[in-house]
């Protein structure tokens, strides 16, 4: 990999391995995953339940460390980064939407929406208001997470991530809790915002239909990528 390559590729994984210790012995979840993702690109990650999609996303976000292999994100190799810098990376570069429990229960929707942007010192009230409007959250701003539905929570999580304008958006079944029509429109919005800001998107989904709307599609099976 040359210098030029690095500058183009926002994210590159080389031979990443991850094993969990379980009561039945070691469980190999990722067995040598290699992939690249450039700025402005979107990628769908599919695979059976338990195939390691969430695990992969967590490794990329610097929430966990691989057992072997290299992950380079925005020019930094995650393996050698200390905890503090990994946290800084999560704050500034990455935006995450999880499968569940995305929101901070003690803050209302408005505060949740702007939380990460403010952490990253990139808060833009107009942009936040625009996102809330586009995601249909304007009426919910003063409520607390436990007072809104699962799908609404998911939309808040998406809005929160986009509000911080991260360079890489990682989303783990962000539309899992949404009906088809809403899912379509939310994904449309995500793609639009991602491409407008020149960010990259890596999204886990079970839906081939949604996967088809993204630039690329990777399938995880047996711990490896099957293109």
């Amino acid at each position, binding site marked *: 990999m040359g210098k030029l390559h690095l500058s183009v590729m926002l994210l590159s994984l080389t031979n990443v391995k991850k094993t969990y210790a379980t009561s039945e012995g070691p469980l190999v979840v990722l067995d040598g995953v290699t992939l690249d993702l450039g700025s402005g690109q979107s990628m769908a990650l599919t695979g059976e339940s338990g195939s390691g999609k969430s695990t992969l996303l*967590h490794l990329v976000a610097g929430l966990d*460390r691989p057992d072997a292999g290299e992950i380079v994100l925005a020019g930094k190799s995650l393996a050698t980064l200390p905890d503090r810098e990994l946290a800084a990376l999560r704050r500034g570069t990455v935006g995450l939407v999880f499968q569940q429990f995305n929101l*901070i229960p003690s803050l209302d929707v408005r*505060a949740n929406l702007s939380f990460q942007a403010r952490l990253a010192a990139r808060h833009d009230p107009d942009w936040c208001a625009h996102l809330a409007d586009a995601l249909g959250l304007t009426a919910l701003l003063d409520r607390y997470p436990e007072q809104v539905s699962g799908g609404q929570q998911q939309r808040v999580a998406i809005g929160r991530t986009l509000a911080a304008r991260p360079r890489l958006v990682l989303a783990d079944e962000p539309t899992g809790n949404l009906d088809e029509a809403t899912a379509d429109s939310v994904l449309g919005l995500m793609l639009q915002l991602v491409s407008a800001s020149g960010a990259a998107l890596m999204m886990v989904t079970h839906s081939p239909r949604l996967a088809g709307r993204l630039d690329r599609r990777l399938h995880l099976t047996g711990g490896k990528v099957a293109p």
Partner: protein
Amino acid sequence: MNRAVIRSGMGALLSHWVRHPMQLLTLLVGLALATALWSGVQAINAEARAAYARAAAAVGEDTLARIVAVAGGPIGDSDYVALRRAGWLVSPLVEGRHRASGLRVIGIDPLTLPPQAAVSGAVPVVGGDIAGFLGGTRGLADAETIAALGGDGLPGVRLAPADGLPPMTVILDVGAAQRLLAAPGQLDALILAPGPHPNALPQHLALRAAARDGSLARLTESFHLNLTAFGFLAFAVGLFIVHSAIGLAFEQRRPVFRTLRALGLSAGTLTGLLVAELLVLAIIAGLLGVALGYLVAAALLPDVGATLSGLYGATVPGTLSIRAEWWATGLVIAVLGTLAAAGQSLWRLWHLPVLAPAQARAWALASTRTRRLQFGAAVALLAASAGLVAFGHGLWAAFGGLGALLLGAALALPSIMDAVVRVAQRARSGVLWEWFWADTRQQLPGLSLALMALLLAMAANIGVGTMVTSFRTTFVGWLDQRLASELYLTAASADEAARLTLWLRPRTDAILPIVSAEADLIGQPGSIYGVADHATYRDHWPLLQSVDGVWDRVADGTGVLVNEQMARRGGLGLGVEVALPHGALPIVGVYSDYGNPSPQALIGLVAFQRRFPDTEVLRFGLRIAPDRAAGLAADLRQTFDLPETALVDQAGIKAFSLRVFDRTFTVTAALNVLTLGVAGLAMFASLLTLATFRQPQLAPVWAMGLTLRHIALLDFCRTLVLATVACLAALPLGLALAWVLLAVVNVEAFGWRLPMQVFPLDWLGLFGAALLAIGLAALIPTLKLARRAPVDLLRVFAHER
């Protein structure tokens, strides 16, 4: 219900404790500690009460009526003879303290003593030597006392063991007792045998009914009430731990409860199983607690004993006997406490719908409504407290007021905390702090019990500390005034007294006779002192109020000084005529008289000797230049071969008084420290509880770019901030507590009121100690959070929770 279902249900419930040994430990330790403090105090009280009862029973004070002098003071032998002749079945009684040995001496007449008096059975068995007893060479005491005296008890008296006597008490024949107490021909009372008796008593005598508890029990009641109140406070604080441990155990087992219900266990059976489980735990912890309480009581009893004898002249044995009823009450209180602490959880379980959603956080999130209700109750309690303190009468009202004050403040605390956090929330200072305060607000309901425990413990420490230190400062100043003479001398006889004064006259600046007589004052047993007219009194005596020329009035016998407790209890003020033996006198002054529970009056020496001509002058205060006092004391001892106790110097008495004083409050101090420790433990238990609910709250923050270490640090700060607010809130509460103790409880209990003095440096030390305790309590949860593996947190985001 199928027995197998119940058995497997029980198994499923109990397996929880195996998986969470820490929780089990917290629950057991909390309950055991609470029980220990409570039952330790009860053990001390029971031991003391038993000693009083024995003292009362020894000469039948508990069952037999007595005849006493109307004016107080002694009854003559001649009265006894006259009454017997008139057909009264009376028996003579002499009571007093033998100065040289410190023994309580009781003189009886074995031939006329009614069989209802406990010692009457023992007399014939005085080594078979009834003649020796009557001749005054034989006496009775309990075996422990005889062993402790080891031969050198009373001169010329051999002691035989007898059961049922209080410690350090000797029973003698009346004549021998009169000789030893230097009160020839004087009796303190006549014991009346039950049954019919003639009607008319001579004018100067009165009948006094039997007192169930005896006079000591009445005298010391306030002291024991004090101890009980503190024991109860410690117990209540301990229950906070139990409550939070049980709450956690119930919450974590919700899925199990649901499954068991779904499998066919009725709500009643399930509740029954849990009650059974709680009972078993309560009994185990109760037994532990009572055993621990025994140790606490055994450690504190010597101090309490010293206090009681110093303050009230009551003798309590230094060793603790094990009483069955005490074990039983300890267990009962443990069980009741557990059920009270578990009440809320059990009630919720009973009302849990079979398929209730797993709302783990619902437990921690007491609603705003609960808080409002609490606040309402707090306001009502505080009002009730103010009412009781302002308008109530008696010690129970005072303690009731204190209880309402503490409980009201505790209930108000969550609302105060909430308000403080809300204000902090408004001070916008960055997204992280915004989150910090919002999160703090969410933690409050889960922490409020522990914070209340901390508030109570701190308030008790500040309040009692302020009371004790105020008291000590006042007491030291008062001792300096009151003990103005450099040396205090006690002669063995009038003869010796005469020789001593003759020798002393050229060698001292002044010899001040000190005479006293027992007398009933304002209807209570008290004493009257006669004092010489001397500058020592005029310059030093600690007068609280006085008329002009007070000492001239005392000297010429036209006025009396009374101590503060007598004035307060009798509602007496300056100028009021007060009844004294052989004629009333107007009050010309009131003086403070700490450490003495009884009424006391002071009249001029001449007036005293007119009223009590038989009283011999055996005690003297000696005035001399302070630097010559030690030399004079040595000379005196050598010349007259005086025993150690016959001559004490001012410094010696002061040191002794202060020692008694400090021992008095060792118990309170120990209870205070224990209470603070218990509060720390409550905080620890609550933090452990909360930690299990924290993951979904913290994981998103972590994922968005905060290190776990940072989050843990914030959590630690939060605990300290909340503890600090609780400590600050404890300050006014503690001062209020101190004020009530000084201005209400002390007045009711002892009859004196003390000026309140504040010691901010002590508070700083206390705050430091409390924050240290809370910091330690928060340390383990904090470290656990900081070291948590990412996998644990990531589970939050996957389906696996």
